[in-house]
Every structure is written in structure tokens, then in C-alpha cells.
């Protein structure tokens, strides 16, 4: 047994890793399912916006299908949606918000409150495609870290965004947000936003792993705080986990997979988990899987009983 950072590497853990490396091509492709699904959702959302803005997609007749962008939008002329973080900043500038944007905010806030806040990050946010690419390339090229930053920096940036909105009288993050830039410029025409994205890509690739999404983005920080209460969680079944650590290797927020802590709760409870599904698709023992929060306790109790 080798001692490795507090956890002893067990024989069955090595076996798990080996199992993972030797899996068939079919199993390999199957393990990409969430990545493929996420890309479909991300591109799909973008496509609905682009189609409405450029090709005048309408439903019902003469009503824009999905008009606007991720800051605020309207679906089939009926359902308003709005980014709660953006409206919070606008609220702090002292502007009295109109009813429609408030309803839209409530809808989106409720949606992610149920689903888990950072579902937005992994499944909708377009910048995620850029940072995922940078992260994947970084692993392929085996680029070592040159700086370390605490991941809590994003919460300070979040606080600063709110304070500065009140001080300057403009929504502080919305005016510099690369998320907004990318989405707007894909839908409404190109400016120089791609330079900001290039900067993020290079920063993530060469300087700090998961730099933007994992350390800086205040929108992600906002959804992390909301996401604690989410209903869809990654269930952790300690009975068959061999502590091989493969999940933490692919996780963009590995601190949420602290095995000691998630053993107690039976799930990945941190709001910083974006439900990207990398770990669940990869886990060689099937210890990690998506589940609804109320069902997790029952499932784990049953698993423990059958293990005894």
C-alpha cells in the first residue's frame, strides 16, 4: 500500500483505474454522453436565439420564437426570462425595474434553484465550450501549473460587482462580461469580444487550469450560491467506491469531490458542482450518478444494506 496524500492506494483502486483504461471502445463512446448532450443543449440554445434574430423564426405566427439573449429573453412571446445576476446589478444601480424583467428573473431563478445553479455553467453558458476546450487541450499537452489562486476569488469578484454597480450606476459585470460579449456577438454581430475569449482561452490553457470558470467568473459564483439547494445532485455510493480518484482527475471543480465529506452526505453537495456529468460517466465502479436529492438517502441506505 502506498500512502498518497492521506489516502492509501488500495489494490482495488488500482484495479478500478485499470478497468477504466481497458474499457471497450463502445464504453468509451458511451462515457461521452453528457459531453455530447451538453454541447447539443449549449449550441441548441444559441441556435434558437440566432434563428430568431437572423432568420426570423416565429412561433406562433408573427411572434419571435426566442428573442433576446442570455441576459433577458422572451420565449414564444409569452414567457419572459432574465438573468437574476444581471437584474440584481441593475437593481443596485437604483433603476426601478419593470414587471416583465422581474417575472423573468423569478422564472430563471426558480428554474436553476430546482435544477442546481451551475447547471447554467455546464449546460448553457457558451464560454464553457471555450474553457472546456482549453482544459482538454491543457491535459493533452500536459501543461503544468505556474500559478495557484484560491477558488474563492470569484466570490470577492461577485461582491465587487455588486458594490461597483451601486457606486458607478451601471451594472458592473454586465459591462465587462465575456459571457455576455460572446453570446451577444454571436447573435447580434461581431465586435472585439472574441479577443476577450481568446484571452480567457490562453489564460486557461497556459496559466491557470480552469482559470476563468473555476476562479474568476462572478456569474458562476452567483450560481454556486444558488446551487446549494438544487434538486438534481450527483449521488455518491460509498459502498462500491474504491477511492481510485479518477473522478477528481476529470472534474473541473475537484474540491467538490472531497470523498470524506461527500461520504457523510451521500452526494456531491457543494454548489460549485456544475452537474457537468464528467465523473458520473467515467466512474469505473458506478459510485457516482445523477439522482434527485430526495431519493438519494433511500438509495444509499438500500445500497449499504445489500453490501452488509
Amino acid at each position, binding site marked *: 500500500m502506498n500512502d498518497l496524500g492521506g489516502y492509501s492506494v488500495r489494490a482495488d483502486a488500482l484495479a478500478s483505474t485499470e478497468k477504466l483504461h481497458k474499457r471497450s471502445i463502445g464504453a468509451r463512446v458511451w462515457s461521452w454522453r453528457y459531453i455530447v448532450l451538453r454541447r447539443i443543449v449549449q449550441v441548441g440554445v444559441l441556435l434558437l436565439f440566432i434563428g430568431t434574430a437572423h432568420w426570423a423564426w416565429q412561433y406562433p405566427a408573427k411572434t419571435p420564437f426566442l428573442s433576446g439573449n442570455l441576459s433577458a429573453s422572451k420565449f414564444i412571446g409569452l414567457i419572459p426570462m432574465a438573468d437574476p445576476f444581471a437584474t440584481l446589478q441593475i437593481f443596485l444601480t437604483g433603476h426601478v425595474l*419593470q414587471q416583465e424583467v422581474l417575472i423573468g428573473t423569478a422564472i430563471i431563478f426558480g428554474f436553476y434553484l430546482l435544477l442546481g445553479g451551475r447547471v447554467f455553467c455546464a449546460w448553457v453558458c457558451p464560454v464553457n465550450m471555450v474553457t472546456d476546450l482549453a482544459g482538454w487541450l491543457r491535459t493533452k499537452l500536459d501543461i503544468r501549473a505556474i500559478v495557484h489562486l484560491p477558488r474563492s476569488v470569484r466570490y470577492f469578484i461577485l461582491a465587487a460587482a455588486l458594490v461597483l454597480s451601486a457606486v*458607478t450606476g451601471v451594472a458592473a459585470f454586465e*459591462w*465587462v462580461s465575456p459571457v455576455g*460579449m460572446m453570446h451577444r456577438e454571436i447573435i447580434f*454581430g461581431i465586435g472585439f*469580444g472574441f479577443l476577450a475569449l481568446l484571452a480567457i482561452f490562453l489564460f486557461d490553457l497556459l496559466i491557470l487550469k480552469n482559470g476563468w470558470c473555476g476562479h474568476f467568473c462572478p456569474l458562476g459564483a452567483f450560481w454556486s450560491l444558488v446551487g446549494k439547494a438544487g434538486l438534481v445532485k450527483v449521488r455518491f455510493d460509498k459502498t462500491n467506491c474504491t477511492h481510485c480518484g479518477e473522478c477528481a482527475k476529470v472534474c473541473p471543480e475537484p474540491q467538490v469531490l472531497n470523498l470524506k465529506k461527500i461520504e457523510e452526505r451521500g452526494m456531491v453537495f457543494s454548489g460549485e458542482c456544475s452537474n457537468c456529468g464528467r465523473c458520473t460517466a467515467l466512474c469505473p465502479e458506478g459510485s457516482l450518478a445523477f439522482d434527485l436529492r430526495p431519493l438519494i438517502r433511500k438509495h444509499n441506505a438500500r445500497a449499504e444494506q445489500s453490501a452488509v
Partner: protein
Amino acid sequence: MAEQSVSRRDFLVKAAQGTAMAATGGLLWVYLLRQEARAHPFALRPPGALTEKDFNAACIKCGQCVVSCPYDTLKLAGSGGDLPIGMPYFEPRKIPCYLCPDIPCMKACPTGALSPELKNINDSRMGLAVIDLENCLSWKGLRCEICHRECPLKGKAITLEMHPRQLSKHAMFYPIVNSDACTGCGICEKACPTTEAAIRILPHSMVQGKIGEHYRLGWTFETEITQDFKPYEAPAPAPSDAPPPKKAPGMDYLNEGGL
């Protein structure tokens, strides 16, 4: 004791470092915001837009007004350009605002940055048409008056003034913009036939002066008369018993008698 002072020192240094980071980052951020917000004073906003400062605060940069515009007049400003990032604007020389009576852009706005208080599109004030008198064909003495003919509020927003000339020449017809009716839609700017438009739309703050409230234009009917200019009447002298003042002899006929 020594250990405690070291940890206190550590704490103070950490706190100072944190504060310095926050202050540097915050100042940089504020600088960026200010640069961006004052980027360009010439931006023309959609009908019903709040004043520039309130508009900057309220616009959520969603582009629903852009989607709703049937003439593709409105655009969202890209990042890094001359205009404040992500907000709607239009360039009348390319596509002017055609003044839809149902104001779809204003209705699409979820935040009220395009104010729903605008009920009649003719009451919108997106900017003000300004004529370059030196290059306006009509002011040069040619018959043009295209801006007047194209103006959706012709006769109100743009009027023509006739100035007869010598017998061998036709009269001059000067287009005049009236700010109380001009919506700033820019149809005149689009229609102007000169190489560079001789009539163009500018934000009110760029072109409009303010007379000040102390001027009274007594000859206009609209001017409220606040003072009556009655001739000065000396107060009646208080009755007194004192003898009348002594008069210089020899002067009486000048002071008392009629000439």
C-alpha cells in the same frame, strides 16, 4: 508572546495585501466602466429611451428591441467599438427609424430602458435634425427640399421658408427644423442627396442650447408676463405742519408758473 505578535503581524500583512488587491482590481474595473460608459456621446437610441445615464443603468443588453425592429434599424453595439458595449443604437444614414405607430421596440424592452410612457411615436425624441447651412442644396439656392418632403411630420418638424430673389431667379426655399416636433427619426438624413448628409441627427445634448429663465421675450405671445411696467408713482407726501421750505427769490417763475 512572540508567537502571538508574529501571527498578528501575519494577519495585518494579509489584510493589507487583500485590501491592496481589492483596491487595485476595483479601481481598474471602475476605470474600464467609466471609459466604456462615456465612450461616445453621439449614440442615437431607440424611441422612448431614457436619458443617457438612466439608459446606461437600465439597459440589460438583451437585444429584444433589435429583434423586434421590422426594418433592421436597430443594432447592438459590439465590444471594443466606439459605442458603449451591448446597447442598441441606430445610424440614420444607413437605416433610419420609420416610426412604427405600435412602437414594437419599446414594447419588447423588458426593463423599461425604453420607457413605456411613450404612447405616441411622434412624441419620441431620439435626437434632433441639424442642417449644415453651407452645404444644404436648398440653402445654396437649388430646388431640393427632399428632407421636407420625406419628413413624416412635414410642415411640423421641417417647414419651408420662402425667400424671393431677383426677378430672373426663382425664390429660395429654406428648410427649417423645429425642435418641438422633430422626433430624430433620421428619414431626412437618409434621404439627403448630398455626398455627406447636409442634414443629420444629433443627440439633443450635443446641439441644443438653453436660454435661461431670466430672459423675458415681451413681444411673443407665449411669454408669460410676470411684471407690470406701471409708471412710477411717488408716494403721497405725508401731511406736515412745518412751513413750506424757503424758496430762492427770483426763481419762482421758473419753478411754479407755466412757461
